[in-house]
């Protein structure tokens, strides 16, 4: 096929954009991350389910460009099966690399994905702390 807009993005980005993984919400999630705002044009919501310190499920909803959708999809794939400690190690560069790179002006989308994940984990940690206190 002739070169076109898709040559802006790697095949992997386009693949995740076309068939995003883990779209949707988790009912009563253990952690929710909400980052971005309408002004910058990207909004990500990330939900996680945690069992015994391991992230067993992750879902997202995103308003944004192709890169924003692809990074959301990729980060939810990457965290599944990881412990909270391991998940906290996931950097925006790791997300971008897993997508075979992003154009420089789109790197902020990977930053947003990392922030969404961190924010969901923070939310989980705060929730579980609260639960611990209640149980005491």
């Amino acid at each position, binding site marked *: 096929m002739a070169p076109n807009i898709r040559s802006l993005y790697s095949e992997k980005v386009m693949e995740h954009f076309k068939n995003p993984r883990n779209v*949707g919400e988790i009912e009563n999630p253990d952690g929710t991350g909400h980052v971005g705002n309408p002004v*910058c044009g990207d909004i990500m919501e990330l939900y996680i389910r945690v069992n015994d310190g391991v992230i067993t499920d992750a879902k997202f909803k995103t308003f944004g460009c192709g890169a*924003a959708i692809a990074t959301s999809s990729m980060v939810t794939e990457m965290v599944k099966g990881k412990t909270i400690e391991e998940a906290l190690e996931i950097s925006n560069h790791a997300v971008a690399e897993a997508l075979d790179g992003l154009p420089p002006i789109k790197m902020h989308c990977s930053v947003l994905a990392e922030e969404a994940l961190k924010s969901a984990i923070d939310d989980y940690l705060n929730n579980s702390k609260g639960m611990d206190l209640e149980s005491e």
Partner: protein
Amino acid sequence: MKRVYLDYAATTPTHPDVVTAMLPYLNDTFGNPSSIHSFGQEAKGAIEEARETIAALIGAKNDEIVFTSGGTEADNFAIKGVAYANEHRGNHIITNSIEHHAVIEPLKFLERRGFKVTYLPVDQYGMVDPQGVRKAVSEKTILISVMHANNEIGTIEPIAEIGRIAKEMGVYFHTDAAQTIGHIPIKVNELGVDLLAISAHKLYGPKGVGALYVRKGTKVAPFMHGGEQERRRRASTENVPGIVGFGKAMQIAQNEMGTEAERLTLLRGGLIEGLLERIDDIQLNGHPRKRLPNNVNVSVQFVEGESMLLNLDMEGIAASTGSACSSSSLEPSHVLLALGLPHEQAHGSLRFTLGRETTEEEIERVLEVLPPIVAKLRSMSPLLKSRV
């Protein structure tokens, strides 16, 4: 898959007859128009013929046309040229908030050098209020610049009315007509403009050539200093093939403009109607009637423009968006924000611009393809959920 091009406001394909007209000047008739031998004079004759054609079509005199490298240069030439040649008279320039970057950026450049610029607001349709222009004029005002029609939303500005005010107040008046030349009739005296910038590649001519109309007597500093080309107003060996192509494109446009505008207005109406009918929470941007025959600009709520563009492109449809995500500045379109659109709606804008090759089938294809794309993106949008 047959690709569908609906981005004619960005650029147009060169008309085959234009290519044919240009070819001799890329081959045998290669002379430098400044040379006095026959090679040079043949080339000189060709550019003067093109100048005559273009001048006649906009109701100008031959020596009021200065060829440039395109619309951006013509705008820069007009704005900086008037500023530099008239700074002893005043340092104030009036424009508005939805001009093309080719006008806004030279004005910002002048602001950093001590000029004062008034950016008039526009109404919800992108209209400049002529009375607002009148009120903004002071004794220091040397130039008014208002585009003929907006490139993003297609709104046609009340140029003739502003032209009368400019004349009455004794202020030079410039208009960027890159989007209108060859598409709607232009007569410089009816519009009352002193400077008018045009570009060839928006009307099926070649890229890299444009012109500035400069009314006789208008004081403008030269844009390029060097040789004596263009009556010393724009030095540099002329782009002979480009200029010849520009002349041919103007001639074709003049013959076809009326019927083509009618045809495109119908197609445009069908596309707008279809989109509003088949997609919820969508709105038309720009003026409903005073708009370019070929322009459709809509904001689709809860989804972002680039992701719509990518999906359309996968279906072979080429359009454009005012979303920040398609630009390196990460700022959404200044035009859509100036209309008062909230950021998320500016990010969710789509522009389809129609042209010669556009058919009813192509419009129907957009109407079939876009609704499921919007539905898919909305199903993953956190904005929609928060509303429900």
